[in-house]
């Protein structure tokens, strides 16, 4: 047993931990994990960002303390019953590691009625070994780094004639430093702007145990915007991964007032959209939601406090930009020539880089070449218009990079080619797959005759709807929808299980478009997808596969 030491408050440091004190320390740890479970979930990005580290550690600790016998048990019994229950009830990866930590402590306590500094150090050493053994590929920057730091510090301190409290205090301090180091050791943490959730969980456990030993309340965490920022990136990233994400605007802002009713705000914001996150304290909250009407959501929130730091992002573009950013290192880039905001969003949402141009505004070879050079590495260019193919061919000659043109003549062909793109495959494989996919698509364009014409037996007046299939006029009439239907009929000959994609132009009436889609489904048994593409001049562009 170590000699009693006197702390700065005049209270004598606890020389050794008996069964009762250990049970109390475990209970305090369970409470701390429960209180911080959501915060730990929010920063959980490794090994898989499934956001359950806090819940798993908390539930595992809860199982452990429920099994501790009441009244008079020695440290060995307390530690063993907690460890056994944790091993059986361990939930998830982080729960299993925590159960191993408790198991190590129990084996270190074997036969002891109380735990002095040396024994505490031995417990943490064994906890460290047990935790490392359970992980198939131990990594630095995780809970393993933290438990190892705790064990080392406690062992060093125990050599110096210290109390159990001294050794635990040294362990807590070392763990705090280790947690702070985790982003430097594990790049995925740094990218997400977080510390490791499991390591932080272990820190909370040790800190709560120390506070309990000292007869104090564990310090509260999660204060102020700085701390909220820690978990924010991970929490919002998960919101974007949730089913249904991908429509509307990702909206974020900060709300300040003497007292923000965060729960009511959260409930009310659900009226405006989904993926609602409200994180913070009464005086300061950070808000995130996905909504089609960011302004309405913000106006509504003003009733709760002052709004600042507003930020909106188009979700579809955000996801596409992310995909483009995460392009496999050295993998090929796709550059698409597009006209119209809707088409731009469509190609952008699937990770292509876009060059604006098209029917009436062809981009120069130089424009395309610049986009290829900006992308760097291997490149594949989708022309998406017959009149752009030559400029694209010219752009890819004499480059230092490998670049090829997939000579798509239309947006439907370009989309088919982009769908066939797989950044995990080689540039050559992609060029082949994309050419093949594009060639399997027929395209119709519905537009208006620029001058009087005669098609077969029919006279077409200037300004009447006409249908062009793969460059030839095949249909004319008075009604845009009828012409569209005639085009589809012409393209469908001989194909079964057709897929029709209807690209609605800026002049197309949404109700008429839906009616047309319904007709096509019924008349041709086709699967029909409508894209709000917003192209000029053409009420409809139609792809058939």
């Amino acid at each position: 047993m170590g000699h009693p030491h006197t702390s700065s408050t005049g209270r004598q440091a606890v020389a050794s931990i008996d069964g009762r004190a250990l049970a109390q320390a475990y209970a305090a740890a369970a409470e701390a994990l429960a209180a911080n479970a959501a915060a730990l979930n929010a920063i959980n990005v490794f090994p898989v960002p499934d956001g359950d580290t806090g819940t798993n550690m908390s539930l595992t600790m809860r199982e452990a303390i429920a099994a501790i016998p009441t009244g008079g048990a020695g440290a060995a019994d307390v530690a063993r019953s907690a460890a056994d229950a944790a091993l059986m009830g361990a939930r998830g990866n982080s729960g299993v590691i925590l159960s191993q930590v408790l198991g190590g402590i129990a084996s270190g306590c074997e036969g002891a009625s109380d735990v002095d500094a040396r024994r505490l150090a031995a417990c943490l050493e064994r906890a460290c070994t047990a935790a490392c053994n359970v992980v198939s590929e131990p990594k630095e920057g995780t809970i393993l780094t933290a438990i190892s730091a705790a064990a080392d510090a406690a062992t060093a301190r125990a050599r110096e004639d210290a109390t159990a409290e001294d050794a635990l205090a040294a362990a807590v301090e070392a763990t705090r430093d280790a947690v702070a180091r985790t982003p430097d050791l594990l790049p995925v943490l740094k990218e997400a702007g977080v510390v490791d959730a499991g390591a932080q969980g272990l820190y909370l456990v040790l800190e709560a145990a120390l506070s309990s030993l000292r007869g104090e309340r564990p310090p509260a965490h999660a204060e102020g915007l700085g701390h909220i920022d820690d978990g924010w990136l991970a929490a919002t990233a998960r919101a974007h991964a949730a089913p249904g994400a991908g429509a509307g605007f990702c909206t974020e802002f900060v709300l300040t007032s003497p007292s923000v009713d965060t729960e009511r705000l959260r409930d009310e914001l659900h009226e405006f959209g989904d993926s609602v996150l409200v994180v913070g304290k009464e005086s300061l909250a950070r808000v995130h939601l996905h909504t089609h009407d960011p302004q309405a959501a913000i106006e509504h929130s003003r009733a709760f406090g002052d709004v600042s730091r507003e930020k909106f992002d188009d979700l579809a573009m955000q996801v596409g930009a992310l995909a483009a950013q995460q392009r496999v290192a050295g993998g090929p880039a796709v550059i698409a020539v597009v006209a119209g905001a809707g088409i731009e969003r469509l190609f952008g949402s699937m990770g292509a880089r876009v060059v604006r141009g098209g029917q009436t505004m062809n981009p120069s070879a130089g424009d395309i070449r610049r986009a290829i050079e900006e992308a760097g590495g291997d490149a594949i260019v989708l022309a998406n218009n017959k009149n752009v193919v030559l400029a694209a061919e010219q752009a890819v000659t004499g480059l230092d990079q490998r670049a090829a043109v997939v000579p798509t003549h239309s947006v439907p062909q370009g989309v088919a080619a982009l769908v066939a793109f797989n950044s995990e495959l080689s540039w050559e494989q992609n060029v082949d797959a994309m050419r093949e996919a594009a060639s399997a698509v027929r395209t119709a364009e519905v537009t208006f005759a620029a001058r009087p014409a005669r098609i077969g037996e029919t006279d077409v007046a200037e300004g009447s709807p006409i249908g062009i299939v793969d460059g030839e006029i095949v249909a004319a009439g008075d009604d845009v929808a009828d012409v569209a239907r005639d085009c589809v009929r012409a393209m469908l000959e001989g194909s079964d299980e057709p897929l029709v994609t209807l690209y609605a132009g800026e002049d197309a009436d949404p109700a008429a478009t839906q009616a047309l889609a319904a007709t096509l489904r019924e008349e041709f048994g086709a699967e029909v997808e409508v894209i709000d593409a917003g192209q000029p001049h053409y009420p409809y562009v139609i792809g058939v596969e």
Partner: protein
Amino acid sequence: VPVHVVTDTTADIPRDLIDELRITVVPLTVAFGEESFRDGIDINTEEFYERLRTTKVLPTTAQPPPALFQHAYEHLCSTGDVVSVHLSHKLSGTIAAARTAAAEVAPGRIDVVDSASASMGTGLCAIAAARAAAAGASREQCAAAAESVAARMHVLVAFETLEYLRRGGRIGRAQAFVGGLLGVKPILTVKDGEAFPVTRVRSRAKAIDQLFSLCSRFDRVAEVAVLHTTTPDDAQGLAARAREALPGVTVHLGRFGPVLGVHGGPGMLGIAVVEGDPAATSQGSRP
């Protein structure tokens, strides 16, 4: 010494085969918030999908605690050796828990095999080990049988969306297929034990054709499994086509259990094809 085969519930082995081959199945956990269920014990597959339709809390999954494996191993080791076959360590900590328990109970008498796959991709490996065990093979031979099937395993899975896989953190290299305003059906495989993008198609019919194409890719096929989460008709149709194309080859038809259901989502349809073993002779071949 008799050999006992252990696997986990994600292997999706049909009930009758589990009974017939006396395979021990350790459950993973699926949780709706704080409410935990042991897969196949506290909740069955049908109940799970029913609950998934109505739940507001999105479920999460968790590996079995090592102690569960420990109990199973202790029990089985009293009458024989053990071969324990599990899903890829890149997808779950299950196999790490199994290894921990094996080292604790009887190192040297328990072989833990990483199938580097999931669902029946794992299940068919465990089945091969169990068949070898039933034929009186040694522990080493049973483990080798499982590893041989793992090496000849080819898997294709069609998804309605990758959002579930991404949300659960199991997207792997299929990240490249995430996103887009079009209704595309991503098709993935399992490569080096994790999700890997193969292709994207625009319609369900084409997705099913892609899956079926795996049946005609090999000179000889040993065994096939077709699985679904919520589309029994698609699965039956695909299995029927496989049976027609591969006369004499066993084609299992089953359902992804809760754990894979959580990570794949509704509409997930998969096929696992075991290529014929060049060393063996008594296998079905393509006409």
